[in-house]
């Protein structure tokens, strides 16, 4: 069993979730992962039990790896922006 993560470790993990979610080219996926990252980190911030915290932290690292790979793929195959997405001036 791994030890419970420190506050700094959790915040760093959160930062990586947000950064990687932000990099999705697909609007719906990007918004979804941002929303779910926010929701789940906030919900999990109430966890007190160190064993459970360690497990949640480990699972989240696995999810982060998925997010990293998929945010890259989302950038490799791109589509037109949606009608709700502002197009950045170039």
């Amino acid at each position, binding site marked *: 069993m791994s030890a419970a993560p420190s506050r*700094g470790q959790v915040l760093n993990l*959160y*930062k990586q979730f947000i950064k990687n979610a932000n990099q999705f080219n697909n609007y719906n996926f990007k918004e979804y992962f941002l929303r779910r990252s*926010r929701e789940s980190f906030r919900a999990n911030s109430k966890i007190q039990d160190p064993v459970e915290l360690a497990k949640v932290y480990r699972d989240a690292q696995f999810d982060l790896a998925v997010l990293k790979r998929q945010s890259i793929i989302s950038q490799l195959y791109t589509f037109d922006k949606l009608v709700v997405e502002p197009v950045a001036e170039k």
Partner: protein
Amino acid sequence: MFRQLLRTATPLAHRQAAIATKRTSIVPQSLMRYYSASGLTKDDVTTRIVDVIKAYDKSLAAKPISLESTYNKDLGLDSLDTVELIVAIEEEFEIEIPDKVADELKNVGETVDYIVSNPDAN
């Protein structure tokens, strides 16, 4: 990641990877920078940071934000919110703020000072 890929590939790729890695290590850090901090004034940075804050949290759009505004007390952001704001600021200035530094940035003024002092910011 790509380095690993190349390593397990053909011997040719092997050699390329080795060269590339080596070159990375011998190029002085300063040569890899294309921009310097000189173009950024404190006023400019402040305006941009305030814009980022207002874009991040729409409820703060009408609030007066000054250099003394603290993220936690004045702007009502918790630790997770602050992390997100830092990410937004990083993206605005195309830099990476180390966790240790980010932890110490408690208000707008400190953040402005850090950005102005960061030669990578642009």
